[in-house]
């Protein structure tokens, strides 16, 4: 027998999620809401979603709200996730950016970086490329709407299960130290990435343009209008020749975006037009 979830509570939780992140709860995710919130409810002794919501209303500093939203988000990530995409970045995208830059400056933005694996993978990759980047200023800016995820990302500490997926053994030996059951990433890598809490639909932490933008497995969760807004912001922070990498199966929306697909590189796009046509976000 299926018991219908308490609809009013789920509706309210969906509204909170949407207001803070722009994500819409799909029908299938509505059913999973209670499952995602169960650990938090158990930890805080809330017998029901209604009790959780009542506590959120009473909570003055907003911490419980943030934790609730965080629990509803999917933070799944892994080191070098979709290895073919990282190979394309290493073998094609970064060398192309290297060749065409005049200022020896490489600026990367990871939008929706979750707990940091994607940004750290790029940092390890740049180290692995060695002398190529000697004398360059390389910056990796990584943002996520969830302060909880950003906190974990900044700490650079990962459980064994996170290390298992995608992280090559040589990178593990080179950059990680075991701490009890966990692994700690080296400061040298940690210091290459600047993590900040920021909403892709209302970005306030970004500055200028980035040569390489990763926005993987993020757009997927937005409804059409929000996806378009996110694409506009991404375009606004790209220049002609910037590369954009999306998740597998994700597509850009909005007729006015400057990106075209790269031949033979799936998930990779390049900004072919100058950004002057995308003025409506300026100011």
């Amino acid at each position, binding site marked *: 027998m299926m018991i219908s979830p308490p609809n009013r509570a789920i509706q309210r939780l969906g509204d909170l999620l949407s207001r803070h992140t722009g994500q819409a709860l799909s029908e299938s995710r509505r059913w999973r809401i209670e499952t995602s919130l169960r650990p938090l409810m158990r930890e805080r002794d809330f017998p029901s979603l209604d009790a959780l919501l009542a506590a959120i209303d009473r909570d003055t500093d907003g911490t419980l709200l943030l934790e609730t939203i965080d629990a509803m988000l999917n933070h799944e990530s892994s080191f*070098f996730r979709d290895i073919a995409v990282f190979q394309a970045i290493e073998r094609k995208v970064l060398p192309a950016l290297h060749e065409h830059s005049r200022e020896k400056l490489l600026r990367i933005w990871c939008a929706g970086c979750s707990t940091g694996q994607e940004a750290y993978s790029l940092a390890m990759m740049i180290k692995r490329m060695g002398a190529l980047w000697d004398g360059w200023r390389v910056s990796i800016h990584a943002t996520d709407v969830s302060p909880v995820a950003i906190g974990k990302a900044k700490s650079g500490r990962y459980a064994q299960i996170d290390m*298992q997926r995608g992280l090559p053994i040589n990178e593990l030996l080179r950059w990680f130290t075991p701490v009890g059951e966990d*692994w700690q990433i080296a400061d040298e890598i940690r210091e290459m990435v600047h993590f900040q809490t920021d909403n892709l639909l209302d970005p306030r932490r970004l500055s200028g343009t980035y040569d390489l933008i990763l926005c993987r497995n993020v757009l997927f969760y937005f409804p059409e209008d929000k996806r378009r807004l996110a694409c506009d912001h991404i375009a606004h922070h790209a220049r002609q020749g910037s590369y954009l990498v999306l998740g597998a199966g994700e597509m850009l929306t909005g007729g006015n975006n400057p990106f075209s697909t790269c031949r033979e590189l799936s998930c990779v796009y390049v900004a072919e037009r100058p950004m002057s046509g995308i003025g409506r976000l300026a100011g």
Partner: protein
Amino acid sequence: MLNCLVVDDSKVIRKVARHILESLNLKVDEAADGREALEMCDAKLPDVVLLDWNMPVMSGLDFLKELSRRDLPQPPKVIFCTTENGVDHIRAAVDAGADEYVMKPFDRDTLESKLQIVGIL
């Protein structure tokens, strides 16, 4: 179809590994210790070996040492399986010639990602 040799003294682990590897379209053979694995390699070289560390008769480490003594032009890729996450332990395996490692218990995603890293998938 690529060939994977699963080397483990635990029948259960071999069964789990076989199930996963077959679902990833690999052909699977099994050996219960390093000695048996070596004999199988001498008969027909697999593309990749999933190698337990602690086994009776011949350990994973000794198997690796024996295998590298053979100076094969195209040695199989070796993913070693362990229950310990000690760095020294992992480094010893790499020094002996292992290409990747995986912690037990492992699941499909983990094995798949390791096989991708070593270039089998």
